[in-house]
């Protein structure tokens, strides 16, 4: 399914979790490096040049947000956050700091592999995919035309910008802040209200049943995610 032979760095202070990830990922043909602290993680990224980092937020020496910030100073390597339900705010902070996606413990290996795929995909440049499709939704990024089951949908400029931002990161979660900054610009990060109204309007236009959206998915408390076909 996903491209085999990826070099994955697993950062977690709990040996059973590292072991579980090593066994599972190795079984799927990936190569796994391990780190138990933030410090070890930073040097392991330099030493092993992994393709992806799976990072636990609760580390003994520094927190995962700090590790993410430090890494983002010099590399765009995909970072996948592992968090527990009790630390919603840390998760959002890590995403805003540049992490690509997150998983809430406990998770299944299927979910992990799907997230890994999404995180790796959007390192591809947007210009390579001028037409994006998922299900019956088709977005022509060059002509700014959106169709659902072949029917053209009229979007306001804001709604289109919103959809475009989601398309550019298809399959990956975008936090409220990230979306607000992408569509409205810096300084609007707190205006979640505007975002919710526009998401609601966008869904009414592109979703068949807005109560059970198929394309624009809500990540409660975090942000939104555009479903991507595999």
């Amino acid at each position, binding site marked *: 399914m996903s491209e085999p032979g990826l070099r994955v760095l697993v950062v977690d202070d709990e040996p059973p979790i590292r072991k579980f990830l090593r066994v599972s990922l190795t079984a799927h043909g990936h190569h796994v490096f391990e780190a138990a602290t933030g410090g070890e993680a930073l040097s392991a990224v330099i030493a092993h040049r992994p393709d992806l980092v799976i990072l636990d937020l609760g580390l003994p020496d520094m927190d995962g947000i700090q590790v993410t910030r430090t890494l983002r100073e010099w590399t765009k390597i995909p970072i996948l956050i592992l968090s527990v339900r009790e630390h919603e705010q840390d998760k959002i902070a890590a995403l805003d700091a540049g992490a690509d996606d997150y998983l809430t413990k406990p998770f299944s290996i299927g979910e992990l592999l799907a997230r890994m795929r999404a995180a790796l995909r959007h390192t591809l440049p947007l210009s390579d995919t001028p037409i994006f499709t998922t299900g019956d939704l088709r977005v022509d990024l060059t002509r700014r035309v959106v169709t659902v089951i072949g029917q053209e949908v009229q979007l306001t400029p804001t709604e289109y910008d919103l959809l475009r931002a989601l398309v550019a990161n298809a399959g990956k979660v975008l936090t409220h802040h990230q979306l607000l900054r992408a569509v409205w610009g810096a300084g609007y990060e707190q205006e979640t209200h505007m975002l919710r109204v526009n998401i609601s309007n966008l869904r009414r236009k592109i979703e068949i049943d807005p109560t*059970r959206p198929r394309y624009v998915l*809500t990540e*409660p408390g975090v942000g939104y995610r555009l479903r991507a076909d595999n």
Partner: protein
Amino acid sequence: MEHSRPNPDELLARVQAEEKQQARGKLKIFLGYAAGVGKTYAMLEAARARQSENVDVVVAYVETHHRAETEALAEGLEILPRKQIEYRGRVLAEMDVDAALARQPQLALVDEFAHTNAPGSRHPKRYLDVQEILAAGIDVYTTLNIQHLESLNDVVAQITGIVVHETVPDNIIEQANEIELIDLAPDELLQRLKDGKVYVSEQAARAIEKFFRKGNLTALREIALRRTADRVDDQMRAYMETRAIAGPWATTERLLVCVSPGALSERLIRTARRLGDELDAEWFAVYVETPNHGRLSRQQRSRIERMLHLAEELGAKTLTVPSIAVAETVVRFARSHNITKIIAGKPVRPRLLEFLRGSVVDQIIRRSGDIDVYVISGEVPPSSPTFESTGWTPHRPFRRYLTSLGLVAAATVLGLPIHSSIDPANLVMLYLVVVVVAAAYLGRGPSIVAAILSVLALDFFFVPPAFTFAVTDTQYILTFVGLLIVGLVISALTVRVREQAEAAQQREAQTAELYEFTRDLAATSGIEGILQAVIKHVSETFSREIVILLPEGEALKVGAVSPGFALTENESAVASWTYQHNEPAGRGTDTLPAAPIHCRPLKTFRGVVGVLGVKPTNPVSYLTQEQSRLLDSFANQAALAIERTQLAEQARQAQLLQATEKLQTAVLNSISHDLRTPLVSITGTLSSLLEDSPQLDAETRRNMVETAYEQAQRLNHVVGDLLDMSRIEAGAMRVKQEPCDAQDVIGSALDRLAKPLQDRNVTVNIKSTLPMVPMDFVLMVQVIANLLDNAIKYSLPETPIQIDVGMSEDHLQIQVADRGIGIPRQDLTRVFDKFYRVQRPESPRKLVRLEARPALADKYFRVQRSEKVTGTGLGLSICRGIVEAHGGAIRAENRAGGGTIIALTLPLAKGSTA
């Protein structure tokens, strides 16, 4: 600090009175101002109207006086036979109460409410008969003339000159549910009288002539009108109070009327009653019992009793206060009871005596300060010679000595003309009388002075040689010594007897006070009420400001305090010392005597429960020994009462603790079950796989692993619920209310439960135009998900689940409804309790009720047996915690046609967040 708002006790009393009224029959009084205004006629007319409404009406007693129109009205009404009572050879016809009771009508007509029954009847008065009929639940219509009203009796007598003996106590009238005033212009009434339309008995003819004068009638009419208006006013006020309508409340006045054995007292009492009524004031009737009380004639004493009884009947609180100083006592009482007006009689004693002694009224006025004093004049001539004896005891020492000198002088003047004819030794008797009188009335000092003066006077005026102190005959020395000794002994004995009598009276009064206090304590429960009772009684009895301090941990805290009294730091220190050493301290003791407060430990045999602080309002007044002992008794009673409430509270706590422990055990059992069950399955599966036994084929392995995975998810769910619950309980849950799209919330919840819902039919009714509602998105998603989870668990897979989202003016409402097994009615609110799971019968044998409905029973067991029913008993309580933190509400109800509806409402305005 009087409050005019109704207090809970008053309201309760009113409600009880209303309830009592409901069981009792209703009393309606047709009130007139004179005979002939048409009361009976109006009553009969009203009765006929009731009869036409199919009310069962009988005439228990109506006097038509053979007036044609009245008789015509009575026709067609059932008339009960009268009871014939023989009295002194005459047969009198009275109402037959037993017949009325046996007949049990809905409404009985009873004429002439104030009528006095023939001797030998069951009750002396007809209104008492009526009480009995009312008590049997029968409504009564009756008639009454205004002059029969007890409190107006003397006013009417003054106006008309006719004393009416048949009176009805005011409180009986006040109990009437309705009073209808039957009014007729006096001219018209006089015309009717002239036409012979008013019944006049022969005996009364002369009196009636005097009575029916226009002036009289107008005055009576006015009284009747005012009285009725007052009552309407009272009812209005009572209505407003019960419904807490703010209005111009009457100022809280308190009246005090001084009762004496004099003839004026009755008038005073009636005046006080009227004034009290007008001001809507509480009133007290006080008799000051001086040491002279014992010397009053039996008639006078019983008169005082009667007066006090009358006052009580008219609604006063009556008290007898023993004291030697009337005016002082009256004013002191008035101050301690917040009296605003004192009513006293104008003195009727001769001017000379008044000049000498100063009247009690004068003294009251002089001392009254800001209290108004109303002096009522009496037309009664000063015929009763004993009237003076009630009040008179000259108080000023100077005056007492002067009086004693006067007495000796009087004896001397009396002796001068006769001393030539009798032996000086016999004149001694005259002086002995003076000494005894002085001892009895003036006290020890003046009586000793009288004894010495007597000896000197005897010597100077009567013993030869007269008008010198020289004595020729030495035998007179013996007379002098004898007179002096006898005088002194008599004085000492008389004074002691008097003091003993006073002491006994005082003790009696104290016992009465203590009794009142203990009765009040027994009647209250709860520390608040007890402290208030202590404050009230102690401050009233001792005229002091009171503070009660109760220990709280190591420190003493003020539990209750007289209004307007603030404890200074210095005073707190005294209280602390008292508490720590279990000894009285402060003023009047050896410890910290300079402090303005006197503190006593409130101790029981178990220890000190608090401290009672007493601060005199007058800085020079100290407690007498007697008072100090009494204060001890009060303190002991208070301590016991406080301890009683503390013990009751401890018992309650212990019970609560026991219940809490029981609950905790249940919770622990539940949690350990919920955590272990999935672990058993997971551990079992994993150990089987570890053994890698060859019997397990691929299919079985896969099955086992799937089960273990499911159980692991369940375990995760349980842990999540427990963590959420503990966060809610610890108050650590932060609700971040932001405008959210309700549709998005529902969608996210459906998405979270996508897997268990995949085969279910879920309909969502939601308007697309709903505005954003302030809520915590994540928490509300969890609420909806929990509700959906329950709907899935407790209903069959083929039944639909319905979500309705609606909007009212200020609330968002979300309903999740299923067609499942429902919730027993008694559990509808308890399902939101922590760890509460609806108890459902586990074995078919217990399902007697369900057996009658096989379809339902089948459905029930299928749901029961399905693997899904594995709640923690926390889901709904988490929902409630979250919804309430949003300022909303959640409730469960059974759905028409079967199933459960859980409905929650959230305020649209960003509300009370926890």
